[in-house]
């Protein structure tokens, strides 16, 4: 365990700030690899930052009937995700707030962020906004249980529900759990669906037949859009971090030495960039599915997550040696 003193707290805060800061970088990298895969020339790695600055200095245009909810929602969305940035592990094996907010609360904050955006999308009252909100919630309603079940399965395996505890046990008792394999495959589907990637959504399109997330934020501009874009890349980063650091926790810093911290930072960054590259290749190789085929994928994910929990329960009952 890491001792409580000023330097460690500073390091933890730095970790959270770093997660927030590098989020657009990861989106930029994803775009670069996608462009290369599709034989196009790519924009700079720092393009998302430039876009953010551009949006920030532009005067936002807002619909006449937009209410306070529409103006407030982007701030709330960004704040929810920013709080989560201090919960997930990055180079240290847990975030500063993770002992306080267990996985149920983490899933709850994700839901809060999502619902605030969905409500804001319906506020102006155009066809696109509510269409996007409907589709987003349609997917989210099937994704949220899977996310919670995967996290609960991790909790069941490690007998503790905070990310701190889960990370600690997974690092120190690096045993392979069969239930985790199912959870991992379910989490891949969650990651793709929750962040609007292929095959669920095409993040680059503005075609009304297919767009989901982009339809929700169509009415936003200026600083509001900048916040939402940053939030989106932060959300992707959070899910990627959860994925790599929960299922492949090797290399994370468990004590405060410069060597361990550096190793943790480098391994996590390498894992992230490898995962993003794989994501980009996978996206380039497959087509987006029809909207009404999505429940089949997500039903599969739900089933996999349930199987994971069942298997864990089975293992627990077997291991304790109680007769069935």
């Amino acid at each position, binding site marked *: 365990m890491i001792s409580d003193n000023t330097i460690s707290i500073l390091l933890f805060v730095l970790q959270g700030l770093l997660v927030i800061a590098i989020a657009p970088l990861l989106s930029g990298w994803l775009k670069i690899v996608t462009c290369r895969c599709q034989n196009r020339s790519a924009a700079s790695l720092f393009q998302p930052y430039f876009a953010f600055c551009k949006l*920030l200095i532009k005067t936002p245009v807002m619909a006449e009937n937009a209410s306070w909810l529409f103006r407030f929602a982007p*701030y709330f969305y960004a704040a929810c995700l920013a709080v989560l940035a201090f919960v997930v592990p990055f180079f240290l094996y847990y975030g500063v707030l993770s002992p306080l907010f267990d996985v149920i609360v983490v899933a*709850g904050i994700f839901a809060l962020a999502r619902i605030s955006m969905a*409500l804001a999308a319906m506020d102006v*009252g155009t066809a696109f906004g509510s269409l996007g909100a409907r589709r987003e919630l349609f997917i989210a309603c099937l994704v949220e249980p899977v996310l919670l079940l995967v996290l609960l399965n991790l909790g069941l395996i490690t007998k503790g529900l905070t990310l701190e505890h889960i990370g600690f046990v997974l690092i120190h008792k690096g045993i392979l759990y069969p239930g985790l394999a199912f959870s991992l495959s379910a989490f891949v589907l969650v990651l793709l669906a929750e962040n609007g990637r292929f095959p669920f959504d095409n993040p680059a399109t503005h075609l009304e037949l297919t767009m989901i997330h982009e339809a929700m934020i169509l009415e936003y501009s200026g600083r509001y859009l900048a916040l939402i874009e940053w939030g989106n890349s932060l959300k992707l980063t959070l899910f990627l971090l959860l994925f790599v650091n929960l299922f492949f926790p090797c290399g994370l810093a468990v004590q405060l030495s410069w060597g361990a911290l550096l190793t943790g930072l480098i391994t996590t960054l390498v894992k992230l960039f490898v995962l993003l590259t794989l994501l980009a290749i996978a996206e380039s190789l497959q087509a987006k599915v029809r909207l009404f085929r999505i*429940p089949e994928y997500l039903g599969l994910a739900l089933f996999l997550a349930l199987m994971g929990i069942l298997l864990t329960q089975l293992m627990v009952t077997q291991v304790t040696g109680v007769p069935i």
Partner: protein
Amino acid sequence: MALLKIVVLAWLGLGCVSIILPARRLLLQSSRYGSMLAALAVFCLAAFYHGSSTWLFDTSFFPYKLGFAIQFDPLSRFFVFLLSLSVLAVSVFGQSYFNHFTLRQQKLIQTVSCFFILAMLLVLTAGNTFTFLFAWELMTFSSYLLIAFNATDKSARQAGFLYLGIAHLGFLSIVISFFLLGNMPISAVSANFIFVLMFIGFGAKAGLFPLHVWLPGVYPIAPSPICALMSGVILKTAIYGMIRFSFYWLLPYQQAWWGYSLITIGLCSMLIGVIHAALQTDMKRLLAYSSMENLGFIVVSLGFAIVFYQYHQYALSDAALLIVLLHSLSHSLFKSLLFLSTGSILHATGERNLGKLGGLIQKMPWVSGCALIGCLAMAGLPLFSGFISEWLYLRIFFSQGMSSHFDFAIFSSVIVAVSVLVFALAGFVIVKFFGIAFLGRPRESHLVHAGPASWFERLSLVWLALWSVFIGLWPMPFISLLQKILHGISNQFALPWPHLFTLSLSQSAANHDGFVPVLLLMSLLAGLLLIFILIKKYSAPSLQRNSAWGCGFNVITLRMQESSEGFSQPFKLIFSKLIQTRLALPKATDVNPHYAAQVTERIWPLFYTPLTQGVWRIVALTKWIQQGKIAVYLTYMAFTLFILLVGVLWL
């Protein structure tokens, strides 16, 4: 005790006075002020009176054992507290709400609702069987009157009649179970009988699957404040009854399968309730189905409490019962809040159909703010009251030391998967409800004239919203109160709650394994503040208002927004196996083509229609007995007399 007497007599007196007084505006108004004061008295009683005692009111004109008795123990006190919060809100809301009814109707509403509240109060504080059953029946009848007084069309009257029928089916089961409980030595077998009958009886009142069919029909026709009381309190009296039976009177005979049956029925109610809530277009029907979902959740928790108690996991059983009580409280708060806000919407617009509303956040800022809080609490999002029970619920599943019970370990994972699916769908339901009714632009032209709600309405909504937020942020005072009640049930229930702000199920105070709602609020606020300051500093200061993007067209009409049917279209497709959809498609030759889809429950064709057909078939077979001729009936009488005489001689 004196205070309880005064409160009961005050409601009785108010009811009687309202019958006698003529229907004048001034008198009605003063009667309403009276009921507001009486509601305040109930609140004071529940909040400040600590004793527990019994008050016997012997009546000489009733036979032995049929006197009224009132008792006020901690469990009663908690439920009276729950009642008082809703009643106070409703009585404040009712000050200005009923003015659009005729004076005669207002008098009827005022009189009957006094008796209605008296009946609920008596049910919750009943000290003997007679009082309980009397009050239960009074509650059913007065609520039926309040629902059906204004039902002019056939379907509304049918819905009221269905309610009365199912309520009496339940009443019959409750009477039999009380009879078995009081007049027979209880054995394991008779305890099972009592449990099943009790469960049917209270399940009918709580609107549990499959006896929930009255629920969606009744709410749309009843006035909104009455809906708030029905959903907020009547359903909870059923929960009160279930707790009394299974944890007070039948505790030594309790069996694990009771818990399993409660869990199964509760899960079915949750799932059916939330799916149908997602598909409704009438806002009150939507809330009715959502009540069914929440009651299912409460019953599942009660089932968990029984199962854990039987498996000697007393700490978990304690926590499960805690969820039952806490969620009863928070559900009664946010559901009353939402029903009252539908009342305000109805008042301002006259529309009950979600698809004809829209844009009310501009017209009714107070109502929409409070309704938003109610919605977020209903969806079980962090910072609001619904999340506390969800958190405890998932925690219980997680921290079970149930590895010795293999079947339970497997069953519980399925339960949790279904429950989290239901929680997620509840989020969709609230976005549909709030997004379509309050956000967007008005879908009908007459909504432009909708005005803000009156001050009384706002006051009562704010009162309920504040309680919802309070429970969501700082549930510990309520939890320690409830823990005292639970400790009174059994000495085994001694789960320590050592922290002031932290929710935690772990035994030791040192373990950082809890959830601090206040800290979540503070970190969110800090994040908001920082982001706001940074954005303010570095961004363009101004804001330009323009019309919304018209998708390339010159105008976007109001009808281009999502309708409430359209919004739930995806779920209609996914859950098509669980629902019954009737489509009316236009023909190619229609001049004015119209598409209509009606969603009903599968349970009608699968269960109720065959049942009624079976009854009709039996009736058709036995019909020939009724010949309609006096000679035949005289023959019957002679025949009966003959049989009786033979019987007498024989014995």
